[in-house]
């Protein structure tokens, strides 16, 4: 199977908030990388997981599916998922797929941290 062309960096801001910086391509091949990043970002005290899409270069429908399964996993842990840094194109994709109804979307890191 092709290798994932994506890098994810986890920043734990405090006991309750973590950010996953996504750089590269989100497709089916990013599954392991994304789930590992989530495992690293999540702890028993974590309440908010923030996805930083500033470095997103490509996403296909399998990538959107991956975000849905991650969202369910996060919700089952009684955490919430927020996102920022989406370009207009990817904001539109979130609207098409109605992910924007389940994930809080903000323009900048400062905006999202104000509500996290």
């Amino acid at each position, binding site marked *: 199977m092709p290798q994932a062309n994506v890098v994810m960096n986890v920043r734990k801001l405090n006991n309750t908030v973590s950010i996953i*910086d996504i750089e590269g391509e989100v497709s089916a091949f990013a599954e392991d990388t994304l789930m590992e990043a989530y495992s690293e970002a999540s702890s028993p005290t974590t309440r908010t997981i923030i996805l930083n899409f500033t470095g997103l270069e490509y996403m296909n*429908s399998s990538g959107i*599916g991956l975000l849905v*399964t991650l969202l*369910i996993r996060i919700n*089952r842990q009684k955490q919430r998922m927020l996102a920022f840094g989406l370009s207009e194109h990817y904001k539109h994709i979130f609207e098409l797929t109605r992910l924007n109804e389940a994930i809080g979307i903000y323009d900048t890191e400062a905006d999202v941290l104000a509500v996290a």
Partner: protein
Amino acid sequence: MSTSSNSPDEKQKVIPRDAAYWAKQTSFKVSNAPSGSLNLNVDGRKALSPLQGFGQMWQKTYRVRLEDTNIQPSEVIKTWKENFPKFWPKGNRFYAPLTGIAPGEVALLNLSMPVGMKLSTGVVVLYADDESFTLMTPQGHMFAGWITFSSFENDGCTIAQSQVLIRANDPAYEVGFRLGGYAKEDRFWQDTLKSLAEYFGVKAQVQTQKVCVDPKLQWSQAKNIWHNSAIRTTLYTMSTPVRWVGQSFRRKPETNN
């Protein structure tokens, strides 16, 4: 703590290379229904993601290995797009868009249901590139979600794959699926992949992997039953004689004038 460096203005200027593959919109509108098709429960419906459905969320992956062929993944997807209806199991009709499977196009589905019932619904092409395409369902479809058809290489062998990420759309469908509908759905996609493999001269078993992503029912979405296409198609079929009589009465004054 590090912060992101790309400015939002710079990002807006760059057109992502996936831009052409996504639908511009996912509204359901059928302008030219193919002859012989029943165009019901499609026009004006909203597309649904797996998050808007009622039942348990399932991710099911069906895979077939196209062993001993030199076929490339892009050729598999090209063939699949061009011949999509041919690979469907008998008794079910997929009326492909006249322009083919392309982002934003709507296809009509006339499906066979248990006890001779028919179901008329549709799908919209959410995404389509050279190695995959995804169909998204409307309100009233059995499922809320999408199905992705893809092909890729693994250990030197080309794989063809269907992957659904779905919830049953309403309580009636959920009950139906638990009473055998899920098994029927599995056979549907397994038979489709077998037909695709046979097209390339391969007889192979289909590998199936099922993951219950969310076992919870979303009772807030029970209202989806209002759009249930199986119920609406049945009511439409049952009322056909009444419509015929009504139409014949309406025509009479015109012939006298």
